[in-house]
């Protein structure tokens, strides 16, 4: 590990803070992408059903 990343006795606190922040800021876009894909799939399904009913 580079010397600059050695937090000494504060390692738990520094990495606990940066770790939680990283976790949330990576998880949020991933969850959002899943939500966006779901709604697009739902709309596509609804449109297909509409077309089938109309035929």
């Amino acid at each position: 590990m580079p010397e600059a990343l050695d937090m000494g006795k504060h390692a738990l606190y520094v990495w606990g803070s940066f770790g939680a922040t990283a976790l949330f800021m990576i998880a949020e876009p991933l969850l959002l992408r899943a939500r966006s894909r779901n709604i697009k799939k739902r709309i596509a399904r609804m449109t297909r059903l509409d077309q089938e009913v109309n035929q």
Partner: protein
Amino acid sequence: MSSRFINWFKFSSPATFYPLAGKIAWVSTLIAVVLIAIGLYMSFFVAPTDYKQGEGYRIIFVHVPASWMSMFLYVVMAGWAALGLVFNTRLSAMMAQALAPTGAMFAFLSLWTGSFWGKPMWGTWWVWDARITSELILLFLYLGYMALRSAIDDPRRGDRASAILLLVGVVNVPIIYYSVKWWNTLHQGSTIKLNEESSMDDTMLLAMLIMTLGFWAYSIAIAMVRVRTIILERERSSKWVKQLIAGEN
């Protein structure tokens, strides 16, 4: 004459804003990634060790940006809510809705990182001090707003009710900001002051500002992607949404 002005109301329609939001999201993502990478590098490799707090002070590089964003996003949401109430535009309420989870996340991270900073420096994870308690209230306001929205089935009624809650809650933001001045708190005073020189090393200050701008760009990117999702969810029965999705598949 009128051609010199941008017709902002044009973009208040979800259908015209949807593609624009997609473009803004891409640019903001790029800016966020670059700024946060530079900010993190500076936080660990450039900023010097603090003479008093040792390495522990580095928590400031996520704590302060997260806290600022939690307050700033709330004010922006209240601004959108006010616009929505005045002009009765659907998109304004959608924008407020799109920012809420990110604001709540930053309020939570502010408390979490503050707690991880408080333990080594003050010897306690939590204290009912004015700054910390008012920030906790901010988190509850975010959660209350989201709960109220999802509890009302009619989206337009939900927009109005939650807009009023947002506007009432905005009084908490100056309380958080000035709490360290108004009351005796364990929390330290502001490091950055508007009318005085800051009490911080220049590289520390720069790293913190770059991280803040990075979090800002992140919030814009997330809000734009989320508002697109909300538009699709709320306008799913409209013709333009169906055509758009059919065109993508």
